[in-house]
């Protein structure tokens, strides 16, 4: 079924999962231009690989693998670190609350981007509520190693977020 799947089906699935792609781009690319390039590259790679998607794994697992592989091995680092929040959709709420959330989310993104590349993927999958089994299926790291990584990453994140929040 998937071998002959149409472009429409592909676009529909990508549209449904675009939030994942946007978040992956946000943790691996700092500037808006880089994020835009990475976003397009992920879509191009997904489309290139689409004919080989047999449906043996979930679409989201397949998408995570391609998006992470594209982001991790095709990194082009820039020196400046701009905080972008413009493209992240925030829920409708009071103005002040919205701003606080944006700041907290901004701090979280900045903290994640300070982690090593692989830890960023682990943390993102954790935030997306994936089980260690699913993380292993996407990353290829054993569950035991993932737990060790996650524990270390949590500590690092906590310290970094505190530093960002208190401006230390």
């Amino acid at each position, binding site marked *: 079924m998937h071998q002959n799947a149409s472009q429409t089906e592909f676009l529909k699935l990508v549209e449904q999962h675009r939030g994942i792609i946007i978040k992956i781009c946000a943790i691996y690319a700092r500037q808006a231009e880089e994020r835009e390039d990475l976003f397009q590259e992920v879509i191009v790679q997904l*489309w290139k690989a689409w004919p*080989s998607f047999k449906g043996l794994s979930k679409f989201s697992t397949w998408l995570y693998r391609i998006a992470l592989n594209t982001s991790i091995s095709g990194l082009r680092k820039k020196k400046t670190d701009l905080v972008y929040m413009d493209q992240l959709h925030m829920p409708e709420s009071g103005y002040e609350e919205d701003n606080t959330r944006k700041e907290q989310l901004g701090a979280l993104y900045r903290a994640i981007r300070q982690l090593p590349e692989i830890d960023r993927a682990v943390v993102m999958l954790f935030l997306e509520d994936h089980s260690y089994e699913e993380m292993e299926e996407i990353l*290829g790291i054993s569950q035991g190693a993932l737990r060790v990584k996650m524990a270390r990453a949590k500590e690092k994140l906590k310290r970094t977020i505190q530093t960002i929040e208190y401006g230390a």
Partner: protein
Amino acid sequence: MELEQLKDMWKEQDQVSSPIDFQPILGKKSKSPIAIMKRHLNFELFFVLVSYGLVIAFYLIAFSGRFAVVAGMYIVIGLLFCLYYYKKYRLLNDMECMACQVKSNLGQQVKTLERYVRFYWLAGTAILPIIMIFFYWFEYTFLSPGGARIFMLPSETVSMPASLGNLAIWITIATIAGYYVNRWYVKKLYGKHIDKLKQMLLQMEDETIAS
């Protein structure tokens, strides 16, 4: 703030905003390092085919066909280049498996990219002695004695062993220099990328050992 608390906020980002038109992106060219390497290699092939084609045509037509053998040599070198192109293109095709697990894809990239670089380096080193031997043979066979020469050819004053010894010295110097220059060049081109990939692979492997 605890990471668990941030989970909800993280997920709230998923709420739908305006739709994105993905259609125009589908027709775009990939900007991945491997796709760029493939495009450069294809350009190299195009350049070699066009320039060699012109040189071959020139030697076949000019000098009343007296130097047709030079055209033949260019055809041989052109065929060698096609083999070189094929080997490099196959390595580039094997270099990534985007739908594979991240660790396995990284491992495959490092392994294949190292093979690619080694091949690039050795092919670059080998080309200089091959060209020198060709020119030596060409001067010895086709040019009349007494004119300007690149190599010390056998003559009344220079014996054949002395001439070949001289050629061997120059080939050795050129090969050693080519070896180091090519090593520096491929490292400059791919060294940082390979180091980065290895470093990320290590991030995945050392934790496995730790567990």
